[in-house]
């Protein structure tokens, strides 16, 4: 594909309400993940790794942390004179207000979309974590002659509002799209769509004029027979986050080498904002097993089955197990943590013990002092 002929659109707020703990103060796109990333890094890196040059990031609320993270788009090489990264907030045009649905959000950004020169458009959400070769998606889309191609994964579908489950014919064409939030087994949507930009414009304008507001029901489901909608199965690592538990489980999956290899593919780096931390330092009394550790950490205690984000400190005689500790948090001496998710800039004072369970991790909010 000619990559600069494809426009990228990322919803940074999609399914914010699914993980209220982590998104009270931020968008889904700026949720920290995997020791040094934010969720939006995966969607952005997929796009730039196949050479796309123009990406619009739709935001709705709480987007200060997102703006801080993506800035001008430099880490993704999207800070450019021509094209590059565009943030699309609500109230950006006189006729649009606050978004409450995907259709409204796209309609609110319609001027950006229509003014772009690209022929195709790829839409992505931020609660989907995968390393996807968008070139192959595009290949599949053009060789099948589809109007719309949507990426899906087979297996146990997560329970997520309005998540689509597909039935496909042998050639990949979607014959049925069920919209529910109940989960189930089968081919479930990863909400990554590719289509001609002109088609997207037409579908959105049509839906808006008919006062329709569900992208899933009113655009995909309603058009299953009228349009040629094809599925594209993602075989590699792909996870849809729908709760704090799934956030925790997916994070812990990264401790397995096969999953890391599937997500961090050689030649397809995941880019993120550079923080210029020093490398991690292991002190004399440190004991780290089966853990992911980012730059800037200083570890003097014991860490097992855990993920430490950039700039985390683990004090002497502290024991951290099965936990996720986010950026710049401070775990003091002799603290015991088990199955805890600690948000950014939190301080756990000496001697405290916090225990959740692996199927019910405790969440400690951003900036708290415990």
């Amino acid at each position: 594909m000619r990559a600069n002929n494809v426009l990228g659109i990322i919803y940074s707020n999609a399914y914010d309400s699914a993980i209220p703990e982590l998104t009270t103060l931020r968008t889904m796109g700026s949720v920290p993940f995997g020791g040094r990333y934010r969720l939006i890094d995966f969607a952005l890196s997929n796009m730039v790794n196949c050479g796309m040059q123009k990406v619009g990031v739709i935001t709705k609320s709480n987007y200060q942390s997102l703006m801080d993270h993506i800035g001008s788009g430099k880490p993704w090489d999207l800070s450019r004179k021509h094209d590059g990264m565009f943030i699309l907030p609500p109230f950006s045009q006189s006729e649009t207000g606050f978004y409450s649905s995907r259709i409204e959000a796209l309609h609110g950004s319609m001027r950006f979309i229509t003014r772009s020169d690209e022929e195709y458009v790829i839409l992505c959400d931020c609660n989907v974590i995968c390393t996807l070769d968008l070139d192959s998606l595009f290949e599949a889309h053009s060789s099948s002659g589809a109007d719309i191609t949507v990426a899906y994964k087979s297996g146990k579908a997560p329970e997520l509002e309005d998540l689509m489950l597909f039935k496909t014919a042998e050639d990949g064409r979607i014959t049925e799209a069920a919209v529910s939030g109940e989960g189930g087994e089968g081919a479930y949507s990863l909400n990554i769509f590719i289509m001609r930009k002109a088609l997207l414009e037409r579908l959105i304008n049509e839906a808006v004029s008919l006062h329709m507001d569900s992208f899933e029901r009113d655009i995909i489901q309603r058009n299953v027979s009228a349009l040629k909608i094809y599925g594209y199965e993602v075989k590699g690592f792909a996870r849809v986050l729908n709760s704090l538990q799934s956030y925790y489980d997916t994070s812990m999956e990264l401790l397995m080498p096969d999953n890391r290899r599937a997500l961090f593919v050689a030649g397809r780096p995941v880019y993120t904002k550079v923080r210029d931390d020093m490398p991690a330092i292991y002190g004399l009394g440190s004991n780290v097993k089966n853990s992911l550790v980012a730059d800037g950490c200083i570890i003097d205690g014991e860490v097992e089955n855990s993920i430490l984000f950039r700039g985390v400190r683990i004090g002497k005689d502290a024991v951290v197990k099965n936990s996720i500790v986010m950026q710049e948090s401070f775990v003091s001496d002799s603290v015991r943590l088990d199955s805890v998710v600690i948000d950014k800039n939190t301080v756990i004072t000496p001697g405290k013990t916090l225990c959740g369970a692996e199927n019910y991790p405790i969440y400690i909010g951003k900036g708290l002092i415990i």
Partner: protein
Amino acid sequence: MSRSPECIAMLLAGGQGSRLGILTKNIAKPAVPYGGKYRIIDFPLSNCVNSGIYTVGVLTQYQPLELNDYIGNGQPWDLDRENGGVHILSPYQQISGTTWYKNTANAIYQNINFIDRYSPQYVAILSGDHIYKMDYSKMLAYHKEKQADCTIAMLEVPWEEASRFGLMFTDKSGAITAFEEKPKVPKSNKASMGVYMFTWAKLRQHLIDDENNPDSGNDFGHDLIPAMHRLGERLFAYPFDGYWKDVGTIDSLWEANLDLLNPKVNLDLSDNSWKIYSRSPAAPPHYVSGDATVQNSMVAEGCQIDGEVDFSVLFSNVTIEKGAMVRDSIVMPGTVIKSGAVVQYSIVAENAVIEPKAIVGERPEVMKNLDDWGVTVVGSGVTIGNNVRIKPKQMVDQNMFF
């Protein structure tokens, strides 16, 4: 040029660093990796931006390819700018012919036009191969306060090491009264750090005079500054008491890396108010497995550790397999150390492979004669074969299979 900066920096980065042997075979000394994710030149470059100097000329000559690539447009240091920013200055052809940079002063002399374009009041002359954190703005304030023509940063070194340095004698006001270059019996322990602040108008004149003097070796320390002193210009020493290291030799490079693991050493790279910037690889966090033991070490992103690591510095994307052991060593990016291999008291350069059961380096404790002991070096891209043993002090520059 919309506005003239008060001070610009000229960074001498053309040095070969021949005493670093195979480590500088294909790269200039300032590009030598240091401290898990840095290169030596990150230190003076970061010092510049942290000190508010945003116009930096980097003078390259020896093997500049990788260094030029690394500096690029200066973005990692915030030196990609409309006004100023970083400029790579290589020797170029002139109507009078082409000359390489003959020496430090000559390199600046050949770039007088570059400096004149910015017409700064002051020029800092820095070396691209020292590890230190220093606020040049304080040095500039001192230079102005003393109404100096040239200010030289000065470090008090242990007396036993003083004979390796260019030494200075000062009076009470800090004015320099005499110089002594690497004397056998030192009478001063005040060493020059190779960091100079000049008033540009003065330096400009002395550069021209120095160039016109056929007897001059065109070196700042040997020729230009002593000449200024003889002519009665105002020379002052600026005292500095932080960490400073010239990583000129294999031993000092090894030591300077391991200094980062010593809490008593005054070089804090985690200080957010004085960050050292570098070009980062986009690698995931490093992973330490259940079989691994990591103690008292520095580990960068992208590493995969299944073996034992003690008192070592691992750069990005290093793999230590299960049963391998690395101690008292520096392992540069992309190197793989396979199971059962031992790496000790060594520097292993980029993308090397240490095959199973190879033994690289030796601990000084087991040596009969300590004179035979030294740090072992494995060059970049070298493969050390199964069961091969590499002796202390050796430098391995080609693949060794058995």
